[in-house]
């Protein structure tokens, strides 16, 4: 890891100013940043430590929803009784992510900015070509081993998966990312790779994520996060789904349904076609399986990741059937 200078910010404003310098990066939990610095992927000149700022880790949950400070730790949010009660999929997405140690370190703001696990991206010494790391240099993954790469939202420049779990649940329930006074719907926060995969979010230089806001909804309250992976714990998703359902007073007709996918796309992926096809219907196994196939409309295989096009709809279907009491 190349050396850098260390600056402990005394306020959000000071941190914001300090990150305007080229080569300066914010340091929160450090679980992504220091890992990538050791891989040689990021080479900051200055790290601006914001972990000592007070108040940025506060959480409140009330009838309107949840507001969670950017410095709240993944583990704290996963274990928060209010979050567990009003947003089970959000709590589960966090408790199924990483390990207990990492969840004690990693912050919510940092979690939203975690980088891809693409092994070509992570190995600059062996694979110099990576449009995300080095714009215009090419993509080593295309034509390579693609078992863990995206099938949705890819471009000819990049097929790297967004590895997040939390962001998937947040996309399902229309959460917002707050950057001081600026507030962006989380779906608009993440950008498709297109020709500029190095540009991942709408966060601007000098901006700091200060928190997230999740509006309360009956669908969010009746929700689940299903994560399927190569080993049972401490592993990224092969495919995952956040699903929430609100039923009409009859208890069986779908009034509102939210479906989002993880582990298969270049950004957290809302599956609106699945939602639209099930609203107003009474769930049954056949209809749910058929609707779930719409979640991978437009999916592109690169060889090794072909299985994800089969797996993702099954994960979606299982999550919907579970919430509908049919699994």
């Amino acid at each position, binding site marked *: 890891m190349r*050396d850098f200078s260390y600056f402990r910010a005394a306020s959000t404003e000071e941190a914001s100013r300090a990150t305007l310098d080229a080569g300066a990066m914010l340091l929160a939990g*450090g679980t992504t940043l*220091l890992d990538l*610095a050791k891989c040689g992927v990021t080479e900051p000149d200055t790290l601006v430590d914001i972990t000592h700022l007070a108040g940025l880790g506060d959480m409140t949950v009330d009838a309107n929803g949840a507001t969670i400070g950017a410095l709240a730790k993944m583990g704290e949010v996963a274990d928060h009784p209010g979050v567990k009660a009003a947003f089970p999929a959000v709590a589960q997405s966090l408790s199924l992510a*990483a*390990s*207990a*140690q*990492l969840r004690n370190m990693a912050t919510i703001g940092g979690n939203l900015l975690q980088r891809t696990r693409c092994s070509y991206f992570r190995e600059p010494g062996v694979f110099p070509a990576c449009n995300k790391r080095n714009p215009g240099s090419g993509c080593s993954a295309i034509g390579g081993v693609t078992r863990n790469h995206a099938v949705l939202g890819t471009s000819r420049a990049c097929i790297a998966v967004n590895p997040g779990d939390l962001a998937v649940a947040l996309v399902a329930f229309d959460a917002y990312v707050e950057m001081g006074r600026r507030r962006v719907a989380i779906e608009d926060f993440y950008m498709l790779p297109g020709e500029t995969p190095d540009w991942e979010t709408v966060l601007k230089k000098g901006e700091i994520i200060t928190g997230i806001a999740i509006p309360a909804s009956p669908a969010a309250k009746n929700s689940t996060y299903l994560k399927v992976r190569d080993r049972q*714990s401490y592993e990224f998703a092969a495919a995952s789904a956040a699903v929430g359902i609100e039923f009409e007073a009859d208890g069986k007709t779908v009034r509102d349904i939210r479906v989002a996918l993880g582990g298969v796309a270049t950004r957290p992926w809302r599956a609106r076609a699945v939602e639209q096809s099930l609203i107003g219907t009474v769930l049954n196994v056949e209809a749910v399986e058929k609707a779930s196939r719409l979640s991978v409309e437009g999916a592109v295989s690169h060889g090794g990741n072909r299985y994800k096009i089969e797996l993702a709809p099954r994960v979606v279907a299982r999550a919907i059937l579970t919430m509908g009491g049919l699994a």
Partner: protein
Amino acid sequence: MTRTIHLSLDINGKQHELDVEPRVTLLDALRESLALTGTKKGCDQGQCGACTCHVDGKRVLSCLTLAAQVEGRQITTIEGIAAEGGDLHPVQAAFIENDAFQCGYCTPGQIMSAVACIREGHAGSEEEIREYMSGNLCRCGAYNSIVAAVREAAEMAATGVAAKDKAEVA
């Protein structure tokens, strides 16, 4: 850039002064600057758990924590958990009792993680222990004995009676 910064770290209840480069992790500071080599370096990338320590009572990975970040926090390492008189921590004793290691390299991290796992209330069943200890890899594959040790230590913490003594009482 070989500038060093001065840090004062609270480790196992003792204040330590050291001068290190800003990039030095807590793990390297413990092992290289302070000769506290109980904390092990496995992958050095946050994937194995061998370097697990406690910061303000919470288990964290010292390989992904900068030493500079934990100034003012209370750090506990494997050297700091036994009683002052030298009696082993109950989790240490349970690891010996259950033969919960082979080569022993991952053991300090396993024990630090287990102490926190029990304190968090995440050691209620074998399944829960396996889930909440999943950040600690053991390449010798001593998992069954590790789970048994954590289970025994958790029961002892809950009842105040060591499992081996329970048999004698019965």
